[in-house]
């Protein structure tokens, strides 16, 4: 049967019914769309972090063992977190920097809750490499903080971007001091 015949036979012959029919068609299609979206959502949302993944989103770290001038790297949510016990000199240099000169202006006091301990997500804000500067002997960049070897971003002793392509400072993860020696990250 030809298409034109079918179309004619399904359309109401009375013109006053046309608006009502359009409403039914649009309402049906809208319900179908809603249903499809409701079905699609669980299938997409299952790719989000599962409950056991979220349960591992907090870690506790004892920072009392870190000597002054020493850094440790811990894994949090699959990423490296840098914890640096800074020297007086490093703190002084970080706080002496004129904020107006920075690409991503942020004062050192905001970035370190206790000036002695700097906690950073060790992922370059450019394209996700891990910057050098944690171990003794590694390149620390022009500002004596961290240096990302992938594309040459230089970070200062507060983890702020000073030179190179990275757009923002190294991220400070949410953390709290549970006691003088233990911090919880996440």
């Amino acid at each position, binding site marked *: *049967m*030809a*298409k034109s015949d*079918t179309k004619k036979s*399904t359309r109401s012959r009375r013109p006053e019914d046309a608006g009502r029919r359009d409403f039914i068609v649009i309402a049906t299609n809208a319900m179908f769309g809603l249903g499809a979206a409701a079905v699609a959502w*669980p*299938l997409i*949302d*299952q*790719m*989000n972090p*599962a*409950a*056991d*993944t979220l349960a591992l989103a907090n870690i506790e770290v004892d920072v009392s063992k870190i000597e002054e001038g020493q850094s440790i790297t811990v894994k949090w949510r699959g990423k490296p977190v840098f914890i640096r016990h800074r020297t007086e000199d490093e703190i002084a240099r970080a706080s002496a920097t004129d904020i107006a000169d920075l690409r991503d202006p942020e004062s050192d006091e905001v970035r370190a809750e206790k000036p002695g301990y700097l906690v950073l997500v060790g992922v370059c804000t450019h394209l996700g490499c891990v910057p050098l500067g944690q171990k003794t002997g590694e390149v620390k960049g022009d500002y004596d903080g961290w240096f990302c070897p992938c594309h040459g971003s230089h970070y200062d002793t507060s983890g702020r971007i000073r030179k190179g392509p990275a757009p923002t400072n190294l991220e400070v993860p949410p953390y709290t001091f549970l006691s003088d020696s233990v911090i919880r990250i996440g």
Partner: protein
Amino acid sequence: MSAEKFQNPVVRWIDHRLPVFSMLDHEKYDYPVPKNLNYMWNFGVLAGLSLAIMIITGIVLAMSYTAHVDYAFDAVERIMRDVNHGWMIRYIHMNAASFFFIVVYIHIFRGLYYGSYKAPRELLWILGVVIFLLMMATAFMGYVLPWGQMSFWGATVITNLFSAIPVVGDSIVTLLWGGFSVDNPTLNRFFSLHYLMPFVIAGVVVLHIIALHRFGSNNPIGIDASGPQDTISFHPYYTMKDMVGIAVFLLLLAVAVFFFPNAMGHPDNYIPANPLQTPAHIVPEWYFLPFYAILRAVPDKLGGVLLMFGAIAVLFILPWLDRSPVRSARFRPLFRIFFWLLLIDAVVLGYLGGKPAEGIYVVLSRIATAWYFLHFLVILPLLSVFETTKPLPKSISEPVLKYPSSRKGPMGAGLEPAE
């Protein structure tokens, strides 16, 4: 030319170069369908829908599954507890597998009742049996993946079927296992094949549909459409009729998923696989039970395996066993009785397959198995010769116009389409 059929200029532009819209249009409007199809003709579409549900949920489940003997069981439990909506997606996958078989069994018995396997639709029927076989292989391998006790011992028993083959049997079983028992290599290859097979099924489904569209659907009275007065276009008539079936199907599936998710499963499969201990009473999934009953009915290893596969093989040659020129059981009074006996026989076999292989159950299994083969190999060929069939109507329209009140078929009682 077809390109002018479309108002939307983008559709027109694409269709001129890639005539997919013309093809869809052709299937929707130009494909003539007999106008007397009842609701039994919904089950092809429902089977396709089941396959789609299985593929979509399966791909999603594979994202969180680990095919390793040490991790598989825990991975499935993690899906059930930790993955967002994982419990629902897995329960849909589990229950839709059962629903797929329910739908396909109804589809098959529909074909048996209305003679849909007869000329010129023999290949259509054979392709359907191929799909059924592929489904069974896929379902079996899928059941192994959770690596519970039933998974493990089901895999052990079914793969051991091949050891019944003379001479090379043991070598084949070792090849299937990739070792000396069902173990990690077996699980890995079953996962690989379980992922592959649905797409093979989808390919055969395409062939099945091409074969179907060559001569169109059979219909409840089993005579060919004599012209346009006997047919209507697929859209909107049968798309709407299929929608009703789809709505009922999804409703029932939702009831199973949300209220009785494990009703068609086996509790022992929530015990991690233990290669050192077989559960006391192992049974396959319910949809394999009739064949399992046939396997156990024969007191001989090779004989049982041959008969079990023979139960499906006989379907391949069915178009040549039943040589009656009349398709629909509506005009074959004796065939109709035997059809219902066969259906009862299949249900009885399914019941016996779930019972322990002892005492009266073995005897009954043998009788039911004998009847199954008797039906196909003896009764159908004899009926083709000796049965007196009722006179066929001249056209699909005739009985409707002649006897407007007698429109009740045994299978589609009161479910005829309203035009």
